[in-house]
């Protein structure tokens, strides 16, 4: 990245509405939320934005709304605020992320838009079948989170667009769980897996998803899980087949944290653990 000497640093601008924020966008401007990743890109990686636009003072980006069918999480909610979210799997996931101090600043939207292959919120939201709302100069659009990530640090967002909200469907008789391997609590995930199970009124599996992080250039949904489990009684499910499917779906790299082979095997192990935990949660849920 080219470092351009400049006499003036960009001032953090604070729009109060989405309309104001979109109007401030220009060449070289960047959206600022918690800033915990972005600051390090400025401080350590030579990123020199022309303008910084702080999205955390836009009220609608900080709201949690629950209707009958879904919960909508504003993209500028902090991880600390998500610890009290009405979605237990999301709250559990957040408590395993970064540090207490960073969770005060870091946001849901920042975690997704930074698009680290290891982003912890991605698998759990993919497993829950989340969709995202995006606002831009041409209006708003709503798309599945599956497909949002296009590569390490890259998403479908154009520079002028803002991720505004994450919509999580909340069907009856659904549970989910996220599990990860990390050296310490502060460390990023070496491998992460999330699973969701949804039952029908006869306590048979109606839907199931498994999603992985840190095993491919983007967080990914494992194909075929719902088909493999659909219609089976949830008690005594065998998840060995799903673990194998997860191993086959991933495309891990070897880096200083873990080898590709280790990551692939752990993708299978964590898939089994996440599904088992989700099934355990179902046991505490009254069934028809």
């Amino acid at each position, binding site marked *: 990245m080219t470092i351009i000497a400049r006499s*003036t*640093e*960009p*001032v*953090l601008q*604070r729009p109060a509405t989405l309309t104001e924020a979109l109007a401030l966008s220009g060449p070289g401007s960047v959206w600022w939320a918690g*800033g*915990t990743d972005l*600051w*390090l890109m*400025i*401080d*350590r990686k030579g990123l020199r934005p022309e303008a*910084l636009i*702080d999205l*955390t003072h836009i009220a609608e980006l900080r709201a949690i709304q629950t209707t009958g069918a879904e919960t909508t999480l504003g993209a500028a909610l902090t991880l*600390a605020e998500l610890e009290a979210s009405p979605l237990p799997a999301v709250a559990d996931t957040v408590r395993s992320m*970064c*540090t*207490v*101090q*960073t969770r*005060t*600043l870091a946001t849901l939207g920042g975690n997704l838009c930074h698009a680290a292959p290891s982003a912890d919120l991605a698998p759990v939201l993919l497993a829950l079948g989340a969709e995202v709302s995006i606002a831009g100069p041409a209006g708003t659009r709503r798309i599945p989170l599956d497909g949002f990530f296009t590569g390490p640090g890259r998403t479908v967002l154009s520079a002028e667009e803002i991720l505004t909200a994450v919509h999580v469907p909340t069907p009856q008789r659904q549970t989910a769980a996220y599990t990860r391997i990390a050296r310490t*609590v*502060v460390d990023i995930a070496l491998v992460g897996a999330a699973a969701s199970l949804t039952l029908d009124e006869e306590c048979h599996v109606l839907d199931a998803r498994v999603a992985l992080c840190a095993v491919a250039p983007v967080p990914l949904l494992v194909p075929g899980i719902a088909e493999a489990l659909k219609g089976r009684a949830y008690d005594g499910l065998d998840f060995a087949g799903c673990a194998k499917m997860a191993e086959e779906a991933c495309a891990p790299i070897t880096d200083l944290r873990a080898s590709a082979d280790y990551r692939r095997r752990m993708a299978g192990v964590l898939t089994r653990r996440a599904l088992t935990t989700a099934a355990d949660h179902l046991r505490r849920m009254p069934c028809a």
Partner: protein
Amino acid sequence: MRLTLNRRETELTPAPLERLSDTLRAQGLTGVRVSCSEGECGSCTVLIDGRPVTSCLMLAAQAEGTSVETIECDDPATAALQQAFIEEQGFQCGFCTAGFILTARAFLARTPDPSEDEVREALSGSICRCGAYPFITRAVLKAAASLRGAA
């Protein structure tokens, strides 16, 4: 920009990309210690509206309109934790101590009667290079008991 700093209305003029930790230290609040500069070690922790933040990862501009508290802020819970850290020898070199105490203060405000495991998890964002962790945990549990007694 205006903010409440250690419970006083304050006006500051930080540079646009100045980190909050640098702004606070320039105000003489040198209890804000910067070690890793990337939000890993917790030694620069301050409280923003009662929640712990590593001030090295935050622009001073982000603190506009908030209430910022450092270890220098006169507070009964801070005092109880300081006393317990002294009695339990919760430090050796002391570099990380302010961060531990402020993080513990925010935690105890929400969790007045924690288990040992809860204390360890709550403090997991701070690193003590002297390895005083068992003593720190004991000090926080002791301060929690004394604060419950005082309440």
